[in-house]
């Protein structure tokens, strides 16, 4: 156990940004802090870095109290969202900065610094850029230089704030794989902030889902994806169809819905709410069922089907186009849930599924 965070709280003016964060990061782990803007993830990262200070709580690394240390003393590598490269220095000088500001007694010689920088440039696959200035680099190249600059001081923890936020989709995917490769070969404990769930799930060993200054769930990507712990996480992960159901003996029931595939849950009898992904709902032709197909639209590979019942309950589903061959507009259908998550209580409003958000930014207007 290397990085231990307990009961961390931080307030800006009247806004409580962090409300008691508990988190342990193990040596060599790659952790994603995932959440919408305003969830406090960046503030948490800045507190770990020593760029901000909590109002309450504790932060320690291998048993030593980090709140008593300055950012410089913690020896962390911080990569800013907009890179914050030094514009008047070449790539080489940017990467060498952390070594060149060491006290004279600890500072490596010029040749040694140059060798370290060369090794990093080759490792990060940016050898040809050594003598360029940041203004002459593309976004992806700047990101690599920023990471190189942070890694030059051999940080105990690497912290990245929205590392791919400012890049286009293709570069993003490439850099994601590249960063995972860098992490696997250096083994540096890494924490990064993102609002993009795809990014968090592909890259991280464990994902920390944050919302409104608290941690909603911590777990491996698959665990979180298959078993969202709270309604927030469920909605956030694209379980955007919310249906009122009735629990009886651990099973959910609702008119026109085939929920037999869902496992038994230890939820008391009575009203509950079922969260579904549109892709996990299969409309099946059934003359007895209360739903009718009211809209059908193809997105190419997928068929988007909206089914409505007499009470005005709208349910959107997405099926591979081939599976929807037999469906017609106006046809009565039953809905079969392939997977879903149930939470007790019926506080949620009935289904309002319009689109499936890929990122939290989209999910939150």
């Amino acid at each position: 156990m290397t990085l231990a965070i307990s009961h961390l709280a931080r307030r800006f003016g009247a806004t409580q940004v962090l409300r008691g964060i508990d988190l342990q990061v193990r040596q060599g782990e790659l952790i994603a802090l995932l959440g919408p803007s305003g969830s406090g993830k960046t503030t948490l990262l800045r507190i770990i870095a020593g760029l901000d200070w909590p109002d309450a709580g504790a932060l320690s690394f291998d048993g030593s109290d980090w709140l008593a240390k300055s950012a410089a003393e913690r020896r962390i590598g911080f990569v800013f969202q907009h890179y914050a490269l030094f514009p008047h220095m070449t790539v080489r000088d940017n990467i060498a900065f952390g070594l060149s500001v060491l006290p004279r007694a600890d500072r490596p010689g010029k040749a040694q610094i140059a060798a370290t920088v060369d090794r990093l440039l080759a490792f990060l696959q940016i050898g040809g850029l050594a003598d360029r200035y940041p203004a002459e680099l593309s976004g992806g190249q700047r990101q690599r230089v920023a990471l190189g600059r942070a890694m030059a001081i051999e940080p105990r923890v690497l912290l990245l704030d929205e590392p791919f936020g400012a890049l286009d989709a293709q570069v993003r995917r490439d850099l994601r794989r590249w960063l995972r490769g860098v992490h696997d070969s250096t083994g540096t404990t890494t924490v990064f902030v993102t609002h993009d769930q795809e990014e968090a799930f592909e890259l991280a060993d464990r994902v920390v889902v944050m919302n409104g200054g608290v941690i909603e769930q911590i777990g491996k990507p698959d665990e979180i994806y298959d078993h969202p712990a709270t309604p927030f996480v469920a909605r956030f992960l694209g379980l955007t169809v919310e249906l009122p159901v009735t629990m009886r003996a651990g099973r959910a029931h609702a008119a026109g819905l085939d929920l037999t595939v869902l496992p038994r849950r230890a939820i008391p009898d009575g009203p509950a709410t079922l969260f579904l992904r549109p892709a996990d709902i299969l409309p099946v032709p059934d003359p007895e069922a209360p739903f009718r197909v009211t809209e059908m639209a193809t997105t190419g590979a997928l068929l988007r089907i909206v089914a409505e019942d007499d009470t005005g309950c709208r349910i959107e589903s997405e099926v591979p186009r081939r599976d929807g061959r037999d469906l017609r507009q106006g046809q009565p259908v039953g809905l079969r849930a392939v997977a879903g998550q149930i939470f007790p209580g019926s506080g949620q409003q009935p289904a309002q599924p319009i689109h499936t958000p890929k990122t939290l930014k989209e999910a939150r207007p």
Partner: protein
Amino acid sequence: MTPAAAPAALAPRQDLRTANLLIGLAVALTLFIVVVPLAYIFWRALSEGFAVFAQNIMAPDTLHAIWLTTVVAVITLPINLVIGISAAWLIARFTFPGRKLLLTIIELPFSISPIIAGVCYLLLYGRQGLLGPALAAGDIKILFALPGIVLVTLFVTSPFVAREVLPLMQAQGSEQEQAALTLGASGWQVFRRVTLPNIRWALLYGAVLATARAVGEFGAVSVVSGAIRGQTNTLPLQIELLFNDLNIVGAFAAASTLTLIALVVLVLKTVIEGRTR
């Protein structure tokens, strides 16, 4: 040229005539208001030959005025740099009660007539002033001496550096400085290796403006200097004095020197502006 040619050819002829008329008017105004008077200074200064011009420049009192003006500029510049950077840094990087007030105070000398600054110093440090008796008792001479001239010049020139540096610091934000901190740099290292290189052109530009003003300041200095020939007369004051003495060539010779300094500063400023863009 070519992209503009098409619309211009399509535009009604009258527009072109209006444009030419306005351009001509602007050129004429600039000629008569700026260029001709400036050229005239040099023409008059040299009208009786270079020997007379040189003789007038080398007159002990004029030479001393040039010297004094230089001394004042050299003393005020570093002080202005330190005050300007500190103020800009404080306002750009921190939020504290009174921040808006500080911003207003920094700009105050711009809106106050220099002569009022002079009078204020006279009332404060003068023989009958608030601090006058105390200064007299300590045998410290501020008014009608170099310290007084330096003080009012500082008052008048203090906004320039902060005014140039502050917007740049605010636009750049503090991320680069924070990055340097996380990389282990000390406060001084952050300033010297990250902050300073980022603001260097704005800083130089502010310094040039402040120096130009320090060299040319008349109103405030005329109140506190006492205009003692060969002692507390700066170049602008010396010019007025020579002019009042009806020493026209002398006045124009001194004026041309001051103008030359101003022109050098102007060229410097243009060069720096080119670098910043």
